[in-house]
């Protein structure tokens, strides 16, 4: 029988400090943060939400929403060259950010095909990262961008490479008293790039993806691949980078033969499954085709 948020305990901290104090005090009691609710409300309705109660982050937007080009890590390890995206930034705000569009248009594309417009107005960057859905649209983009996540607790703040942060399916490296406060995107000198984002889903909006593929290909003066990143969602137990394929293709020039080679490497590297939304066979065919066409140079947009 469906339940409602009003049947649950909710604590609404006034600021980040109060939230972290509460999380430290109730560290192992099963409280979970509630941001936009786009995942949590569905879990609550379906009686799938295992939580003692919810820490409602609604009043923390002043501190935790926003996109800052000169963003620095709280721990001061990096002092420049990063864009800081507050964890409570909504997907609609990602879509509309001129800063992010200039740095990497893939972010906007991923945000624009997550759920529907209503969900994009509620869903937050941090919520998507912590819920860690294997098919989450924005997650492969963070992987491809070598992003880091900032985790805060009452006593410390730490940064973790997003690749390390993702662990088992739907599990992350976050501790029970930690709040994800930001995601950090490195800004680097970029040569010529070719980019691609594709979500393959049953319909144009409001569907969980069958698979997600995103790619960033640097090209050197000779037109050879440099710093190639190929990231997938829905092709394994968690979003992943096809590291072996990236290494194999690095330094080669785009061609149909190279595209075919990429496709074959991906067959060995990816482990999709059959589920309600699609089949392993179909997912692998699309991954091969999209990555092959991208590596061959047929699809993708130029960005510089």
């Amino acid at each position: 029988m469906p339940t409602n948020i009003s049947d649950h305990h909710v604590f609404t901290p006034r600021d980040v400090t109060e939230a972290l104090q509460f999380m430290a005090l109730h560290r192992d009691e099963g409280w979970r943060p509630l941001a936009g609710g786009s995942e949590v409300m569905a879990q609550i309705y379906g009686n799938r939400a295992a939580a003692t109660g919810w820490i409602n982050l609604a009043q923390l937007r002043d501190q935790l929403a926003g996109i800052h080009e000169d963003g620095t890590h709280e721990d001061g390890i990096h002092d420049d060259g990063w864009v800081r995206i507050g964890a409570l930034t909504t997907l609609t705000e990602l879509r509309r950010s001129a800063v992010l569009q200039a740095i990497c248009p893939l972010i906007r594309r991923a945000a624009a095909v997550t759920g529907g417009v209503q969900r994009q107005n509620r869903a937050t960057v941090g919520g998507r990262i912590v819920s860690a859905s294997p098919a989450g649209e924005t997650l492969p983009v963070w992987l491809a961008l070598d992003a880091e996540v900032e985790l805060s607790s009452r006593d410390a703040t730490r940064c973790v490479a997003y690749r390390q942060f993702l662990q088992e399916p739907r599990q992350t490296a976050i501790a029970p008293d930690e709040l994800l406060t930001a995601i950090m995107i490195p800004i680097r000198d970029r040569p010529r790039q070719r980019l691609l984002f594709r979500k393959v889903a049953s319909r144009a909006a409001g569907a969980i993806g069958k698979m997600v593929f995103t790619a960033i290909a640097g090209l050197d003066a000779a037109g050879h691949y440099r710093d190639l990143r190929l990231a997938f969602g829905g092709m394994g137990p968690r979003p992943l980078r096809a590291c072996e394929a990236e290494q194999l293709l690095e330094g080669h020039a785009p061609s149909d033969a190279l595209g075919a080679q990429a496709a074959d490497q991906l067959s060995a590297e990816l482990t999709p499954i059959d589920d309600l939304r699609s089949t392993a066979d179909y997912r692998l065919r699309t991954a091969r085709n999209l990555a092959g066409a991208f590596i061959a140079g047929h699809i993708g947009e130029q960005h510089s």
Partner: protein
Amino acid sequence: MKTTESALGNSVPRREGAAKLRGDAQFLDDLPRDGAWFAGTVRANVPHARLLGVRPDTRFDWDRVVLVTAADIPGENVVPVVLRDQPSLAEGFIRYHGQPVALVAAPDKETLALALESISVLTSPLEPVFDIDDALAAKTSIFGEDNVFRTVEINKGDANAALQTADVVIEGEHHTGAQEHAYLEPQGMQAEWNGDGITIRGSMQCPYYLVKAVAELLDLPQEKILVIPNLTGGAFGGKDDFPTMLGGHAALLAWKTRKTVRLIYERGEDMRFTSKRHPARIRHRTGFTHDGRLVGMQVEMVLNGGAYGTMSPLVISRAAIHAAGPYQCDNIHISARVVATNHPPSGAFRGFGAPQALFAVDAHLDYCASKLGMDPLELRRKNLIRRNGTLATGQNVGDDASAGEVLERALRESDFITRREAYAEFNREADSRRGADRFLRRGIGLSLFMHGTGLSGYEEVFFHSGVALHGNADGSITALTSQVEVGQGTRTIVAQLAAEGLGVPVEYVLTEQPDTNQHPDSGPMASRTATIIGGLLITAGKRFREDVERRQGSLLPDPLVFRATVAKLVASGERLEVREHYSPPPEMRWDEEKHQGDAYPAYTWSCCVAALEVDTLTGEAVVLDVTAVQDVGKVVNPMFAAGQVQGGVAQGLGWALLENVVWKNGVMQNANLADYSIPTAMDLPPIHAVFLEHPQHRAPHGAKGLGELPMEGPAPAVVNALRSALGIHFRRVPVTPEIILPAWEARNLE
């Protein structure tokens, strides 16, 4: 003096539209609860079993709730639809996973949830069958000796002999999937014990079904059962037969608790355990002369009816009658069966068996054209039914023969020929293009079809629909029908039709949500409101006016004077009421046994064109635009008519491309609206609706049925467009990317 302009043909605004827009419209769950108890259903958790009993956990205090099992039923334990094979609550056997075994009512949700968790269903498993062939092989017994709910055979000429002498014989097998109605408002009923009878409110199409069903179930006289349909949030046939079961459940609980009980399904429960469109397998053997003239058709169709008969015996009739499509052929044999399996019962769904039949015949026809080396347009022109042509049942269509006209009009409206050539050129040059376009293929296809107006054959006679008009003290006139507003605009259309007969402005006619005490039985179902009921309303309106004018002793062409006269007559104590009942046109002949004769009073003819683009990297097909041309006889309300076409095309595109019910052991696995994808606004192409108005002579205003027809065109048009884009003939809907992509890659390896 002013006279009234016709109420027909105007986009009169929806009467309950403003309340719906403002969110003021009260659906069942919005009604004040007033102490109504909460109710839930104890369900079987196996698809096929002997039912040994239910075991309530003794740790739960059962005095807090009321429990109903089959043993409590005072009357007959049956859901009376057609075959009377379905029990209201399981007794002896479980035939599908989720079958209701017991009911619980409780004063609050928490107690109800606890009670439902505290009861187990004891079963001894039997072998289930889910597949049509296994059911036909009678691997396990579900219904009768052969698991066949009904067989319908139609013969015209000698198909066997014709196929033996045909120049070319082409075979094809097509499959269609289940489809969820996905009405906005889930199923729900409230029943109230009122001392010596039951009042039922809820989400439904057909209140009179419930009166009879509940009377039988509770062993009460029918006059003790009052059914008041609530404003209903969508139906599509899903609120036709299913509420007969649900209303019975609510009534049983009200009867036993002596209270008001509200039983509303949650979305997942609704999707898993209520009816779906019948899945189908349809085989064609079709004979042609060398130059493409149809000489013989054999159609063998099997529908998967699920565990109980529900509407299946009627669905299979409509499926069979439409199985040869709008094509002239002198030798036809149609064999149509609907079989029992351990799926939840299939039921009424917009189209009622015709969509499956029409998909197969029109997809097959394009396939035949390719085998014959002919243009599919030429093949259709050569064989479509023309004036005085005869359908499979032998029915002479007379002047009601617009197949050719809708085809030619659709070709023009969609610029079919030019675009087909342009797309072929686009596809030929694909490999020479750079960029993402090199992976795209485009195609355009069409379907030609018809839908019989009203109920099939004798059903309309048995149904004996009635309407009534009565005059009010203020001179307004109330139109009484049981046409429930389920979102189709029926309250507004009923007023328009009555106003047309009365010759008064539409505002003079009052329409209410019906109840079974005051409103005569009239439906709604089967695309009948505008045509059959409309005809009765117009006739009743004319008789009402004649009655008023006779009493007044003069003609009253001025509507204001007419209104004042009605008011005066009512004030003087005169009773102004006119009733009208349907009787079939005397020249119509129908042999139900042989399925021969005049199956329907009229046919709505239609041609649907779909253009699409396939990304061959992913197999995703995006529909670019749809053109739907239909001869509806008369458009009663242009806005509603266009809405029916757009909604129907959307539902048809969903069935064609997206809507895939994933079954496991007889249970729908993707029973939510995220994983079961119906099209959203972002998936829908521009839909161009064109109406032809050749009046049919069996209704005073000439209107024919429209409600179901528009969903029937897209599936065959899409499959034919895919053939045009990819050169591959797909034989199954939904034709998902999981089917398209491997087929494309296999073809390119050849």
